Every structure is written in structure tokens, then in C-alpha cells.
């Protein structure tokens, strides 16, 4: 399993906020949904757009791509609607000393 790396300070991601970060050069979106932090690949698999700019549904724990509305699960990165036909990578998240650390999920 890849190593956890610090990508942001917890203070930069209050509840309801999103943030674009990088892990080894890969674009990752951070999402704080009701106090739980999720990290998934930040680029929509359908057409180039950053998911952290999209609409987050707190109830369903999903994000809609801002460009064409493809929906992804924040829990596992899976695609839930067209026009996306593939999911994005999921990252494990840890919070240590008010820092957010992520690592690619196995």
C-alpha cells in the first residue's frame, strides 16, 4: 500500500468545503461532508472538469461533475450516472495532528 502523505491542513477544509490537492502528481478532490473527509480522483472520467467544483449531495454522499452532471460516489469513487462510463480512484484518508493525509486505496 502506498504511503500516506499530508495534502492539506484540516483548518483549510471546514464542513461543507471542498479542495483540490495533488498526490504524487495526480489530481485529488477533498470533500468534507458533515465532518467526514473523503478523497477521490478529481478529474471527471467523461470530459475534463474538476469534481471539487461540482455539486455535493450530503444525503447521498455524491458529487456531480460541474460540466455535464456525471455523478460519482464520494465513498468509493464509482460512477453512478451517465455520461461517465468509469469511476475515479478512491483514496484512504487519515487526520493526524490537524493535518489531512491520503493514500491510494488498495
Amino acid at each position, binding site marked *: 500500500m502506498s504511503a500516506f502523505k499530508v495534502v492539506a491542513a484540516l483548518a483549510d477544509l471546514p464542513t461543507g468545503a471542498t479542495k483540490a490537492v495533488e498526490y504524487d502528481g495526480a489530481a485529488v478532490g477533498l470533500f468534507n461532508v458533515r465532518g467526514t473527509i473523503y478523497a477521490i480522483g478529481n478529474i471527471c472520467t467523461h470530459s475534463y472538469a474538476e469534481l471539487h467544483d461540482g*455539486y455535493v449531495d450530503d444525503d447521498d454522499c455524491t458529487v*456531480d*461533475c*460541474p*460540466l*455535464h*452532471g*456525471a*455523478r460519482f460516489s464520494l465513498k468509493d469513487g464509482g460512477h*453512478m*450516472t*451517465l*455520461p461517465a*462510463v*468509469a469511476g475515479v480512484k478512491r483514496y484512504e484518508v487519515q487526520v493526524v495532528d490537524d493535518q489531512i493525509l491520503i493514500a491510494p486505496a488498495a
Partner: protein
Amino acid sequence: MTVEANDLSFDYSKYGFRQEENYVFKSGKGLNEEVVRELSAMKGEPEWMLKRRLQALAIFYNKPTPVDGAWGNPDLLDLNYDDIHYFVRAGDKPATDWDAVPEEIKNTFERLGIPEAERKFLAGVGAQYESEVVYHSLREEWSKLGVIFLDTDTALKEHPEIFKQYFGTVIPSADNKYAALNTAVWSGGSFVYVPKGVHVDIPLQAYFRINAENMGQFERTLIIIDEGASAHYIEGCTAPVYSTNSLHSAVVEIVVKKGGKFRYTTIQNWANNIFNLVTKRAVAYEDASMEWVDGNIGSRLTMKYPSVYLMGRGARGEVLSVAYAGKGQHQDAGAKMVHNAPDTTSVITNKSVSKGGGKTTYRGLVKVHPGASGAKINVNCDALILDEKSKSDTIPYIEVEEEKVTLAHEATVGRIGEEQLFYLMSRGIPEAEALSMIVLGFMEPFTRELPMEYAVELNRLIQLEMEGSVG
């Protein structure tokens, strides 16, 4: 004798007609949050649908009008969103038997031939008059099999779980500006669910039309064909002549599960001031088959590209379409096929006729994702241009990211040859009839796929159009 001398004007008064307007409710012109809230409250919708509508409204406001780029059209700038009624209700609630349908609406349907068809062999008819479905019937044996065929508003009330599970999953609100608009103000349309293994062998039919000036029609159709099931759905439209622009913007979402088969047949015949901006998309899973049969006549501008996402091994998609553009009309129609699984097959056949300065465009996309090995694609576009003033464009986008693919693209463009006309006339056929025969023959691959009464109607429309075309 030259083809250029022919004036093939399309006279809608021959079959377009208007009944007196008589509405239970008609919203003011223009669109805002209040209109959306009022519409949703009037329908007694659940909170999640109102939330979805309001989100879509925000998306509609934020998305620019697609005037340029790969799928844009500058004519859309002429569309004035503030000059449209977004919700009109013709009757109190959907009726389940013919006698309950208001007399005036019945007159309209009778002129359209619906009762005749009903008597003969139509099994289920959902007729949309203005923004609301007013008449529905479904054969008893189908209900027993679990087939659901309702207007979309009723389906939301009676089958909320299945509705919420699929609504917006094939075409999200943000897919394009007009899908967002439809999601914000949708009203009416058809909902079909065919359970596992059930074969509906008589077509499900919905007949609808617009009858009010400046009225937008935003029907929403959701169809689910469960595993191993099959069905055929047909819709047709006519519209009378208008004095100002009107907008029709529908969304059709279809899910065909493993081994399912579905065909969706449309003949749209809009008055030539209507913007017809429709998003139609289907997803076909393993060994499923999805066919769009799509006829476009009239309208000022039609933009419509029925799509099939082939998501399981062995899935098959087909689009068979015709477009007829007369003076001042632009038929921008095409198809999209997205291959995302091995051994998938798609066929696109597009035929277009332009005359009197009309313009037809075929715009299509074939996309093959990595891993869709063994995909087979056949694209065929034929354009017939009847005079010097008319135009036709073919814009095929092809994106193949897999090596083992067989793809054929064929496009032809031509005019009616004087030799063809001369030959027919030498056999004693008058020129007008000869022209008509050639055009009908050109469209024959499409009309032969239609049920008999639709084929007859389409041929009659084309013949009407060809009337007075000589001399």
C-alpha cells in the same frame, strides 16, 4: 424542366389546425424560481423533486447557450426564454377512459385519427395535450403482467421508489442547457416499466401536440425495460402554425437491462417557428438491444441526437432517422453511439432531404472506449438536396481508443437527377408525382420500419409537401 424551378413550400394549413384555448391553469411568461415552486406545489410533488428542479434551474441559468463549438448553433440566440409560458394545464387530471376526455380535446384527437387507431389495435394510448397527459389506457392483461404505462406525473406519485432510482441517471440535469431547463420545468411525458421477461408485442403509443401560442412543452419520459423484456413505444406530434417562436424541449431516458429489447419510434412534425431541442439517451446492458427510429419534419430548428451507451458485452444500438427541411428550417439531427464493452454493435442510418433554402445537418458521434474490443460500427448518411438554395452538412465525430474495432462510415449527397425524372415522366407519370415518388423512395428504408398508420401518415405529409411543387 429543371428541379430548381420547383417551389416546394410546406403548407401547414393543410393539416395544422388550432382549437380554442381552454386551460385550467397557464403560468405567466418567463421563468424564475417562483414559477418552478408553483408548478411543483400544484402537482403535489415530493421535496426531493422540488430540490432537483431548483438545482436544475440554477444550472440552466449558469450554462451558456451553446451557440458555437462542436455541438452549438448560432440560431439559438433567437430564442427568447422570457417570452414562453413554462406550464400550461389543459385538464384537471389524467383520464382513464375515452368518455372522460373533454369534448374539445377529443375533437383534436379525432382529427388526428386516434380513436380509429384505438378501435383497431392500439393497446395503450397516452396522449399529451399541452403539458399534461389527459388520456391513458392500458390493456388489462399487461397490467396483470406488471407493465406500467403512465404519464410521468402520475408515475412519480404511484411509483416513487422506481422513479427516484432512475430519474436523471441517464441524462443528468447538467448534461446540457436544455436538459437542465427540462428538469426544472418538466411536465407530462410517459413512464414505462416492463418487468423481467415480459414481452409487450403491441406498441405503446403516446400522441401529443402543442396548441397554445408561445407555449413551451417540456415532457419528460422515463422507460425501463427489465432483463429479458421487450417493448415498442411510439410517439408522434403535429403542431399548428404559430405567429411567434415556441420551444419544445423534451428529455427521454431509457434503460434496457440484460437481454432486453426496445424500440422507440418518433415522428415529429412541428410548425416552422418551433425550436425543437430534445435530449434522448438510452443505456443498453449485456446482450440488450436499443433502437431509435426518428422522423423529423418541420420546426425552425431541430437539434436532436439520440444516443445509445453500450455498457455490456454484446449490446446493440441502432439509430434510423430521417429529416426534412423546408424554407427557413434547419434540421440538425444525428446520433451518438458510445461503445464501452466488448463485442458491441451499432448502426446509424441517417437520411435527409432539404429544399426551398432549408438546411439539414447530420452531426454524430461514435466513441469506442478502451477495452471495447470487437466493436462493430456502421454509419451511413445520405442527403438529398432538391434545389440550389438548400444545404446539407455532414459532421461525423469518430473517437476510437481500441485497436480491435471494425468501423465503416459512408456518406452520400446528391440531387434528384434529371435522368431519373425524365425516365419516370417518359412512362406517363406527371412531374410532381415523379418527384414525390423519388423522395418517398429515398425515405423508404425509414418508412418500412414504421407501423402501417404512421407510414401512411408520413407518406401523406411528404406528398402534401410536394403538392404544387411543379409549375
